[in-house]
């Protein structure tokens, strides 16, 4: 293919580079999948989720690099983790699921996970911001798959925010 897919490592933050490569080579991989009839050939929904969470991996990788600097102290590491949370919260428009915040909000328009929630429209906007081919893939999904896609992206985003906040 002219380039090689990065190998999976024991470092989970490096998983982002695999996603990045797969997304960059999406069209070539589709042709490759069709020719080889791969068992692991993925669904459209998988690609939409990959495109949506890839920017989060990019942002996490920046923090990961910074907190590994030789001259950084623990308080600075905490600051970097806080910045990561703030950026992901802002990027996906994640909101705390307080009574005040949920008041007047239609439950069908949000996805709630633990103590947080996201407006479905916010995730759709995030997906659309990833490029026209991602937007077209998402629009072509069935309603059930659309809901599943939104839910999975929410789970990933909120899981990162909730757990990084506890570090």
């Amino acid at each position: 293919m002219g380039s090689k897919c990065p190998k999976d490592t024991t470092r989970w933050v490096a998983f982002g580079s695999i996603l990045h490569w797969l997304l960059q080579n999406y069209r070539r991989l589709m042709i490759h999948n069709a020719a080889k009839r791969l068992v692991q050939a993925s669904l459209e929904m998988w690609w939409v989720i990959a495109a949506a969470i890839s920017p989060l991996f990019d942002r996490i990788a920046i923090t990961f690099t910074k907190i590994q600097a030789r001259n950084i102290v623990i308080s600075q590491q905490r600051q970097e983790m806080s910045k990561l949370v703030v950026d992901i919260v802002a990027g996906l428009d994640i909101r705390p699921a307080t009574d005040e915040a949920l008041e007047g909000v239609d439950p069908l328009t949000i996805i709630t996970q633990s103590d947080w929630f996201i407006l479905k429209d916010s995730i759709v906007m995030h997906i659309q911001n990833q490029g026209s081919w991602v937007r077209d893939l998402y629009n072509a999904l069935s309603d059930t798959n659309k809901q599943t896609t939104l839910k999975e992206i929410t789970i990933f985003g909120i899981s990162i925010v909730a757990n990084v906040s506890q570090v």
Partner: protein
Amino acid sequence: MKLFKLQEDGSYLVIIKNSLRFNLIIEHGSVGLSFRQTVAVIIQHRNLCKNSKLAGLNNHMVGQFVRVLLAVALQSMSTIMNQKHVWAFSLATDASSHMGVSLLDQRIRIYVEGVLYNLHMVLVPFFERHLAVNYVKLIKTMLDILCPDWHSKLISISSDGENTMTGPHGGVVTLLEKECNNHVLRIWCVPHQLDIVVKNAMQDVLDQAFYKVAHAYSVHL
């Protein structure tokens, strides 16, 4: 070892007759060349430059010279740790595998004359079972030699979140803590924590199916 000669005062003396050869070996080793590669590079250099001072080099000699450097480094570390005004230091422990060999990595953070040093103490192959007691035995042996008073000077231990390391009853940190005279500050490495957060978040997506597809691509392509 013949190279290390025991002196009357209990110290060891090493005489390097050919300093050029020694310096070259150390310089080549410091950029990551293996013993064999170091020998091959220096022999090529000798053949091209017709430099007779570099003659007679072999793998064994490289090993000996690296041991000398290691001994000097450990002695320097020991001297620093045993200074009276150095009243505390911190350890960072991690275990890993490389080419099928388990390794125990040990760093030491120490404050000397206004500077906080982060020294790489040792990376040793580990042939016993990966039990906390075995790790602790190795670390204790090392510290007993380098700084017999370590029980009073060790104030902090950082590690990853592995149960072997941080287990509340028999983890490496807990066992070392019991050996110390002071309260020991435990630090759970933040990058390791971030990695675990990403791992858990990733595994939740499509009940691990998402990860499996990406992994399969990674293996296949």
